[in-house]
């Protein structure tokens, strides 16, 4: 189909069972759309995906089936929800008939000022309906301070901030939840499968104050690449967790937006003989579920990457596409020796991630190229670790991030790959430290000797997250922490077979 023939003047979004129309510029976000429709339960607390007051539920399908997925409405372009189903706190229950999640929150004092509450309700509902939770619940999952006896994963609320309660009653409400009833309509809806993505080509009507703008969600990778070839200035969005912030906070606008997050070609995860290939448009949550700990280094990363709300939207391709020096996946992927598949209408090429970043938010990717996949060479290293230094354990941005992947054979370090974030204008490898470690015995003495070299990697600077001096100290201390972790957990990574 040619784009011109398919130009639409509106999107149709199902919200709480009602079909609503949206027509607006590409930067209009789902939160403003809902509020303009009178659905004012979703709130703006920060407009950058940090507080979760705007969280909503979107029906999404992936390799594991369908699920109610919580996302930050402030970051999602409204047009990206064309043909999709959304549920807000208003749609879950009513004052006279509270949803079980709402009932627990109300009865246990989970709301004080109530402003963050609708967002908490949506995040909590997503976890309530998470299919794996019910299994863990029945299996008698051991409870700890981050997981309830009902299988409720507290990380599902990591992207929701509350300034009033101190969180204890919210945790109690979460851990008291049972399983959805047999006739629960949202559970039934989840079982039926989410609506398939629809191709969208929306040209916003000109308004007295608004600019004309076009939002396109092509049906295939081929179409996407063609659009990019024809209009290299097009803004590409995958999860929109970065562009959404630019729109809301920095006033970024775009004449043309290309959404690639639902392209099937970019949403595959495959184990090959020599490498693992991760589709660039898989969300971090999807990768987390599909890998299920099979790449331990990434397993450690996911729990520390922003919040569940962000991981439900953010893609690995997007995190690399922004070229940010403080993205959390690059240090891990550099340690894993990853490669990127960059594809244009001319076809794919493979580049080493270590050669991908060229400057502050600059990369070797051409304007006509998309990151289509990330490749992790196999076999995996025997000793790996991901360390993130930040002020807050949940939902924070790294001041320093370090990924380690060492092969230790018969007590000797045969290879070392170390990825660093937050210490230079780009993510980078700690090449000097790697060289210092390779061929040396895996001992505390080796580690301590290498620490001084590690401290001189990169060119850290002072900012509001950390001082340059602290960043250097963190580089130095991370090696010994890595060593100590490995001693505490002596079992090497399990062999992963394709």
């Amino acid at each position: 189909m040619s784009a011109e023939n398919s130009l639409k003047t509106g999107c149709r979004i199902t919200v709480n069972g009602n079909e609503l129309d949206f027509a607006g510029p590409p930067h209009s976000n789902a939160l403003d759309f809902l509020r303009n429709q009178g659905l004012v339960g979703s709130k703006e607390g920060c407009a950058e995906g940090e507080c979760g007051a705007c969280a909503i539920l979107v029906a999404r399908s992936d390799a594991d089936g369908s699920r109610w997925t919580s996302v930050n409405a402030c970051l999602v372009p409204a047009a990206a929800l064309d043909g999709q189903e959304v549920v807000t706190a208003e749609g879950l229950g009513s004052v006279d008939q509270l949803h079980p999640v709402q009932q627990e929150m109300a009865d246990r004092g989970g709301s004080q000022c109530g402003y963050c509450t609708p967002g908490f309700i949506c995040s909590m509902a997503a976890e309530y309906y998470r299919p794996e939770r019910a299994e863990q619940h029945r299996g008698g999952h051991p409870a700890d301070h981050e997981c309830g006896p009902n299988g409720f994963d507290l990380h599902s609320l990591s992207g929701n901030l509350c300034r009033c309660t101190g969180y204890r009653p919210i945790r109690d409400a979460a851990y008291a939840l049972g399983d959805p009833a047999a006739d629960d309509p949202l559970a039934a809806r989840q079982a039926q499968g989410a609506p398939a993505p629809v191709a969208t080509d929306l040209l916003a009507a000109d308004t007295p104050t608004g600019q004309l703008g076009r939002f396109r969600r092509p049906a295939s990778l081929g179409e996407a690449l063609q659009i990019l070839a024809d209009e290299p200035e097009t803004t590409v969005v995958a999860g929109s967790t970065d562009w959404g912030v630019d729109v809301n906070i920095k006033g970024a606008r775009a004449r043309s937006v290309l959404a690639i997050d639902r392209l099937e070609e970019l949403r595959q995860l495959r184990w090959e003989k020599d490498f693992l290939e991760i589709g660039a448009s898989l969300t971090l949550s999807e990768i987390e579920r599909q890998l299920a700990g099979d790449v331990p280094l990434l397993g450690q990363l996911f729990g520390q990457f922003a919040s569940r709300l962000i991981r439900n939207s953010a893609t690995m391709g997007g995190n690399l596409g922004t070229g940010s020096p403080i993205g959390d996946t690059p240090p891990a992927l550099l340690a894993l020796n990853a490669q990127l598949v960059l594809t244009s209408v001319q076809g794919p090429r493979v580049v080493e991630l270590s050669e991908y970043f060229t400057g502050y938010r600059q990369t070797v990717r051409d304007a006509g190229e998309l990151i289509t996949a990330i490749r992790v060479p196999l076999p995996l290293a025997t000793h790996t670790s991901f360390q993130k230094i930040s002020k807050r354990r949940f939902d924070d941005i790294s001041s320093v991030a370090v990924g380690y992947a060492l092969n230790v054979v018969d007590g000797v370090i045969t290879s070392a790959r170390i990825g660093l974030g937050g210490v230079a204008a780009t993510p980078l490898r700690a090449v000097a430290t790697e060289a210092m470690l390779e061929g040396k015995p895996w001992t505390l003495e080796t580690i301590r000797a290498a620490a001084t070299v590690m401290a001189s990697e990169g060119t850290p600077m002072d900012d509001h997250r950390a001082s340059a001096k602290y960043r250097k100290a963190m580089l130095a201390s991370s090696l010994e922490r890595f060593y100590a972790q490995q001693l505490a957990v002596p079992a090497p990574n399990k062999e992963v077979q394709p």
Partner: protein
Amino acid sequence: MSQLSQRPEAAIVGQRHRHESAAAHVTGTALYTDDLAHRLAGVLHAYPVQSTVAHAKILGLDTAPALGIPGVIQVITAADIPGVNDQGAKHDEPLLPVDEVMFYGQPVAWVLGEDLEAAKAGAKAVSVDYEPLESLITVQDAIKANSFHGIQPVIQKGDWDAGFEQAAHVFEGDFDFAGQEHFYLETQNSLALVDESGQILIHCSTQHPTETQDIVSHVLGVPAHEISVQVLRMGGGFGGKEMQPHGYAAVAALGAKLTGRPVRVRLDRTLDITMTGKRHGFYATWKIGFDEQGRILALDAQLTADGGWSLDLSEPVLTRAMCHIDNSYWIPNVRVSGRVAKCHKTSQTAFRGFGGPQGMLVMEDILGRVAPQLGIEARELRRLNFYTEGQDTPYYQPVRHPERIDAAWQQVLDSADVAAREAEIAEFNKNNPYSKRALAITPVKFGISFNLTAFNQGGALVLVYKDGSVLVNHGGTEMGQGLHTKMLQVAATSLGVPLSSVRIAPTRTDKVPNTSATAASSGSDLNGGAVKDACEQIQARLSQVAAGKFGVPAADIRFAHGKITALGKTEELEWNDVVRDAYMQRIQLSAAGYYRTEGLHWDLSRMTGSPFKYFSYGVAASEVEVSSFDGSYVLRRVDIVHDVGDSLSPMIDLGQIEGGFVQGTGWLTLEDLRWDTSDGPGRGRVATQAASTYKIPSFSEMPEVFNVALLDKAHEEGVVYGSKAVGEPPLMLAFSVREALRQAVAAFGPEGSSVQLASPATPEAVFWAIDSVRG
């Protein structure tokens, strides 16, 4: 007075009830100020032109380019203000600057647009010509430049010089600690409408509707009766909406007056952080003397509050800080002087605790630092110095019920199993080179009442309708603290009706006038007293009606659970029937209630008197584990015993204690407010101006185990139904976390290490403290 605190049997106060808006909160149907804008047509959106320098002369302001942008309706500048150009209480805070900007981010003009996009584009188009002037950003800058404003009070008692001479140990030090951003989830919001007679209604997220009304009235140059302010509810306040909303309300009202259309002023997060005041950071210098046993003999301290560009509430914040430097400790000889630094940043303001936390932090920091040098465990040093019966504060107020500090302390030691856990901790520390644990226990004594005596009054208007249903209006505002829930319980208890018969009306200045801010933890005390007074007036009239029916004296009539009975009679009357009879007999079914706190006096010039009705007490024990790799830590367990008197509403009180504690922990450990102090073009800009850079506690900061108990046998005589205030005091229980971090850091060093810890004690600060004790 004692009648005020007497609680009837089977009272509805004291029962556990959920927040009166809980069902609306969880279903997203509870409305906040900005939600109302979506119900109106033709709303104009306001956006500020913000200063891009910290301190400058305004040479020119050109608004014409903005007016050329489609959708821009009006640009408001100082020249448009018909009344007094002032948004503060001290006449030093112009709503819009005339010739000088005083901080980076200060609004210089406001643009009204058909939508936010147009207003923002308009704001960008306004050009301002500045001539930069010298700017002072830090307290140290201000001290060096001798830049202060407002009063410089001194508290003096005894002979401190003699005290130091007698002292076996004298220590001196200083402490520079940070303020805190309120980060209420709902930012500042105002929505103004003009009615057919020119009267202005302002929906406003304000803790102080009367003052909002006063300030809008003088900005517009109209009498107060032309302005009504309504507060449905706030999405958090924490003191940040006591003074700060007034200017934004005035802009909305002025815009509505100029255009005839509704005007919405909603600050986004970055506007809110860059324009509104915060908790004051302080710089303190001190000298303290102890006797041989570790008893404090003398203290000489100077507190300098980081006030920002205008006074706002800095003076009362300073005096409360000075009045709380003693925390729970007896200091026989003392001098505390205070001053407010004037510098070029946001005007710092009220924040939960209102200076109390800052004053107390100085003392807790001193004790934590010097305990190892005295060779006394910090826990013992604290206990040794507790107030005892008959002692008074540095400002000569007798400390009533000091035994409650001991009682709460002992209860925490027992319930938290402190002795056994300290042994476990010692064992853990012996075996872990990279991680250390520590447990610290700290007390809180916090004075309740506004230091300014006049504010200690409250009003209410209770309406009983012919069908027996009850509508309660009172002067307090609901910001999530559960005040409305408590007031419903007070009204139902006073009238003897079920909770379901009583409803709360939104707070409005045209229902209850001349109210005090809902602040100083006083909301329940003041408004509860007023609601009860109104209910009792109505009840007295209904007693007469019922007495006539029963044929007994009115004094023998009893009200409970919607039934009316008489002593010695078996039959009972329905509340609704008696109300209807009263109406038919032309008996007034509404009443205005009033309450003033008795027995307060305060001499600001001498800093002496009894400014507080009573003190609230609490004790917390916190255990942390610190990693030497990066200074990060987890809060393993917290045990709290807190004194709320006889609780009006236990679940609400528990929520205040837990929430206050975590907020205090955020201030002391995580929340890192930074300004650009460089000489570059961004000098004076708030560097942490978004949720991505200013971090408040999340789920990962809540204590893994969190036990909170209310102190038993805590009836407070002379306060509504024997209760006590709860809003602010629990915030200061968080000192226990900071002291636990200090002790865990010390465990990395040689035995008896004294640790200096920056505030906030971020992982980086803790890391450097470890680095320093390791030597």
